[in-house]
């Protein structure tokens, strides 16, 4: 693809004692839709704020277009932000909110007028210029926020969980609209979210983050199909993660038997983690002689598109997704094909993963940030 | 630029005109001919008449506070049970008289008690001013909004569902009031008390205009000490007034400390009324 627009080089950011970001190296290409994905408090918002210029890195540098902007204040960067809760100016109407940046640039009134109207049309808010912000619904406010940022024709648009406050249906609609907008305008979008589904739908590139570090960078399919570690596997989609031993290339032992697999390059008899997606496991009749394993269906949940089964195989309970119904209590056979098996090196420390992380983490991050401003 | 520099002019102003003047009270109380001494403080403290005035003031202020509470609680309670917008309107009506000049309001009562009511009753040689009850009534008049305001705030914050829950659990209206509403409004009561009690001790205009000088309160004592000192020939001796003021400040300090314990959100505030 095209040239690097943004380079983050050896970035470290600390708040007091805590590392918010450590050892971040990342480049962002011109015109791509990049998503920073991770649980609350993983440092993704801090990264966005570094790029916007609201905070300065403790170490390392940020290059935009090859120029070091680490110490350049936000108002001198050609970067605009769509804020989490929109941060629309309550004392201005829709038109003046959108025109704000252009007025600061002291453009001619005619030009401001054309550009604002153009932009309001782009976000489907033609005729809403005179409305006050508090007279708009959440979805409409969202559009104003996008228009207000895009009207300045930034090189990069930063979006900080912009869809978080919308309900599910509106959110799906906005996802598609945003993606279309980005493709049409060709502007680089950096999108922050903790919603893996959103990230998978919209992005060209996903950067998965946890505890201030980048876990994996890749296309949505890479990240989903080839998670690099347990964290990514657990965070993106559902998975069965099981301990195993890599017997040799293309042969793995887990759940008490050998399976053929497609991975190689591990040391002989290396203990590894095995990831199997619930939808990649096939259930067959107990009598099927191709079955690798046998188990008993403990419970069934109807999920809409598919059923979710918990199947007990010896000491292990597997989660399996299937569109065919099997009654609880049935004995079933299980087939796991080689390309359904993803093998990862054991994490250095087995991480306790809890994705129900509260907003407090984010708030703590923001607080730390405020404190930091006064240093 | 750091935004906190915007506070610097104020901080300088505050240091010069809020913090430093407070120091003068202590300076004048303890300064005897240029050196630190308790002698003047001691002389003032051993004047038994000053303590008598303080005691009478505390009695009158306490009486005022009790009447404010008894009369003001029902007002706040009724308002808190009304529709929000109507209650807001009526509470504005309650606080508006507060904005008429204190002196003028007191003067009006002086006229009513001294002339209007006696004239109406056909008295020729008696007036209603000069009695302790008159002083207390006008104090109640002046301070009751300060009682109603915090009471109304704390009563209207009580979650309606608690009252319903109490009814649901079998309490009748009276029991609900005494077991649920009253305990929950304690912070309002406490801040109402402090907002009435201290100003009542220091109100020197009311005793002067209504009490005909018969009921000097602590505020009058301080006022006279300072005005006399300033009026006297030669350099003014503020030691008596300063000592009296220190005692007053101790009272204020105690009551504020009590209030802060109950009133957790004291950082808020800034209501127009």
């Amino acid at each position: 693809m095209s040239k690097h627009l943004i380079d983050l080089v050896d970035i470290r950011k600390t708040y007091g004692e805590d590392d918010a970001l450590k050892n971040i190296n990342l480049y962002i290409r011109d015109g791509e839709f990049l998503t920073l994905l991770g649980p609350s408090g993983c440092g993704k918002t801090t990264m966005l704020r570094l790029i916007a210029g609201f905070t300065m890195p403790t170490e390392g540098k940020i290059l935009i277009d090859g120029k070091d902007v680490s110490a350049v204040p936000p108002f001198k960067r050609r970067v605009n932000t769509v804020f989490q809760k929109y941060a629309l100016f309550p004392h201005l109407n829709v038109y003046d909110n959108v025109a704000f940046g252009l007025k600061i640039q002291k453009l001619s009134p005619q030009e401001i007028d054309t550009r604002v109207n153009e932009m309001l049309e782009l976000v489907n808010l033609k005729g809403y210029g005179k409305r006050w912000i508090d007279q708009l619904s959440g979805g409409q406010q969202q559009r104003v926020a996008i228009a207000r940022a895009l009207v300045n024709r930034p090189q990069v648009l930063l979006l900080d969980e912009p869809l978080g406050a919308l309900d599910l249906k509106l959110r799906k609609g906005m996802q598609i609209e945003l993606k279309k907008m980005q493709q049409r305008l060709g502007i680089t979008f950096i999108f922050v979210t903790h919603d893996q589904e959103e990230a998978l739908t919209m992005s060209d590139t996903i950067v998965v983050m946890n505890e201030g570090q980048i876990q994996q960078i890749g296309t949505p399919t890479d990240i989903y199909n080839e998670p690099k570690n347990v964290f990514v596997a657990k965070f993106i989609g559902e998975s069965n993660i099981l301990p195993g031993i890599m017997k040799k290339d293309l042969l793995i032992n887990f759940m008490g038997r050998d399976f053929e697999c497609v991975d190689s390059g591990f040391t002989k008899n290396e203990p590894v983690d095995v990831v199997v997606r619930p939808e990649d496991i096939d259930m067959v009749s107990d009598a099927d002689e191709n079955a690798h394993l046998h188990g008993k269906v403990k419970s069934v949940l109807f999920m809409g598109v598919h059923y979710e089964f918990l199947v007990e195989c010896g000491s292990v309970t597997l989660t399996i997704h299937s569109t065919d119904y099997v009654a609880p209590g049935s004995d079933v056979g299980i087939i796991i094909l080689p390309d359904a098996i993803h093998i990862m090196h054991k994490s250095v420390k087995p991480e306790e993963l809890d994705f129900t992380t509260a907003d407090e983490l984010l708030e703590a991050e923001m607080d730390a940030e405020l404190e930091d401003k006064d240093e | 630029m750091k935004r906190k520099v915007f506070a610097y002019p104020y901080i300088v102003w505050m240091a010069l005109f809020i913090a430093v003047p407070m120091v003068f009270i202590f300076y004048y109380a303890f300064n005897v001919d240029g050196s630190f001494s308790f002698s003047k403080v001691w002389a003032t403290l051993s004047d038994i008449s000053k303590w008598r005035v303080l005691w009478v003031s505390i009695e009158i202020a306490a009486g005022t506070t009790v009447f404010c509470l008894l009369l003001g609680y029902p007002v706040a309670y009724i308002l808190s049970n009304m529709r929000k917008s109507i209650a807001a309107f009526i509470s504005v009506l309650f606080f508006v008289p507060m904005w008429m000049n204190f002196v003028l309001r007191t003067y009006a009562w002086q006229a009513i008690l001294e002339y209007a009511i006696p004239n109406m009753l056909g008295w020729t040689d008696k007036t209603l001013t000069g009695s302790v009850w008159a002083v207390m009534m006008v104090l109640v008049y002046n301070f009751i909004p300060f009682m109603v305001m915090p009471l109304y705030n704390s009563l209207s914050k009580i979650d309606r569902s608690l009252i319903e829950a109490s009814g649901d659990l079998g309490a009748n209206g009276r029991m609900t009031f005494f077991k649920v509403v009253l305990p929950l409004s304690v912070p309002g009561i406490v801040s109402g008390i402090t907002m009435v009690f201290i100003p009542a001790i220091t109100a020197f205009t009311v005793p002067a205009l209504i009490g005909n000088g018969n009921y000097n309160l602590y505020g009058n004592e301080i006022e006279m000490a300072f005005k006399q000192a300033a009026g006297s020939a030669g350099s003014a001796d503020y030691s008596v007034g300063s000592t009296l003021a220190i005692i007053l400040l101790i009272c204020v300090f105690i009551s504020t400390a009590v209030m802060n314990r109950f009133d957790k959100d004291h950082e808020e505030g800034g209501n127009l009324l």
Partner: protein
Amino acid sequence: MKKVKPFRYVYLALMLLFLYLPIIYLIVFSFNDFSTGRRVSYANLGRWNGFTLENYTNVFAGEAGSALLLTLEVALITSVVATVIGTFAAIGINSMKKRPKSIILNISQLPMVNPDLVTGITFMMLFAFVNGVLVNMGADRLSDIVKLLIAHISFSIPYVIFSVMPRLKQSSSMLYEAALDLGCTPMQAMFRVIIPDIMPGITSGFIMALTMSLDDFVVSYFVSDLRSTLSVYMYSAARGAKGVNPALATIIFIPLVTLLLIVNLRRISKEREDEIQNKKVKMKG
């Protein structure tokens, strides 16, 4: 919604009557004819002698007039200066860290918690001290208006701060960042975004400062020597033989009350509108 029983309304009405009685009384008597022979004395404020508008024609004659001028002058300058200093102070304090912030806010509460009497005497002593120094240096003493301004501004600023603070807290720090993001320098962000956003707080702070200054008696009483503000004038007149012209009550009270009523009723109806608006927006989804 609980039903409000009728005796509750009766009680409220009686309390309101109690509160408004002296005000009504003064307004009625402001039309009373006080002239007895050649001299006018307002002291006998209890006997109705007949209707006249004379009290209004001579309401600002003599001392009352100059007192009014001084009062207005002090109140206007005070409210402008206190609003400017207080608003910037609030913005500054709001961006401070927790600890210095709470120290400064606590000290700022001092003039609000302190009885007026204490504020008054501390200024009295401060100015006596400063005057002593000035006289020793061979300079002029501080004039009454300077002393009044310093004292009034000092006790008004905290009210401005505490009116602006809640608004500042509501307004998210995101707005400031959004302004920077859209190309504002910090200064532009301050004047184009933050100040307009907290304007309602600033306005109510200004009105607070204005009314506090207009209404003050105790502090002015201790601070001024030669010239008196309106309330100091009224106090000495009330204690004197001549009494206070009750027309002052209507003339001062009516505009002030009207102002406050308008401000508050507007706020109340705005709140109601907002409630209705919020419901509508929610329904629209």
